[in-house]
């Protein structure tokens, strides 16, 4: 049995680029989640998305863990880089690509994946 919080922490720690968002990359359910995704995509990130909508506890546990009240939340190399506004801002300034290069190397492959948390175990 792994608690929800442990699972979330594990995603943050092990996924190169993680976004906790409303909906999925295929069907984003919120404009901010879409904005963040687009910035990550344009910067060539290997994106792992976690939909927070299936269970309200995901959002609660995530915000408790990060002390960040809103979603989406974007992590690069285990570090919270911010929400949609910061991600867009970092992309516009070129800083996002630099961050990705630093954390993952410039040879990184662009990708989009979806990861579901195990709600039954939590």
């Amino acid at each position, binding site marked *: 049995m792994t608690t929800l919080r442990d699972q979330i922490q594990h995603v943050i720690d092990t996924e190169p680029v993680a976004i906790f968002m409303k909906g999925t990359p295929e069907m984003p359910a919120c*404009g*901010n989640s879409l904005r963040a995704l687009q910035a990550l995509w344009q910067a060539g990130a290997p994106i792992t998305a976690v939909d927070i909508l299936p269970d309200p506890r995901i959002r609660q546990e995530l915000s408790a863990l990060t002390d960040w*009240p*809103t979603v989406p939340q974007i992590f690069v190399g285990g570090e919270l*880089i*911010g929400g*949609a*506004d*910061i991600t867009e801002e*970092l992309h516009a300034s070129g800083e996002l690509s630099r961050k990705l290069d630093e954390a993952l190397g410039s040879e990184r492959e662009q990708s989009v994946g979806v990861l579901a948390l195990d709600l039954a175990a939590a």
Partner: protein
Amino acid sequence: MAVDLLRTLLLEAFPEGSVEVVDRTGTGDHFHVAVASDAFVGLSLVEQHRLVNRALAGPLSDGTIHELRITTKGSA
């Protein structure tokens, strides 16, 4: 008005800053706040947004704010 509440809270947190609050949708729950303050100097964007989020913790947690966009600038 929620706009006034947000402006008041932000001015309390950043007394010498300049604060702008826009109701983006006219529905009183989707906001864009722009804060310029010396308090941001030397802080990362994440730290700057944390300060703004902290100032708005009340309306963020009680559902007054459904969506929040933040722009910060490091000088008033």
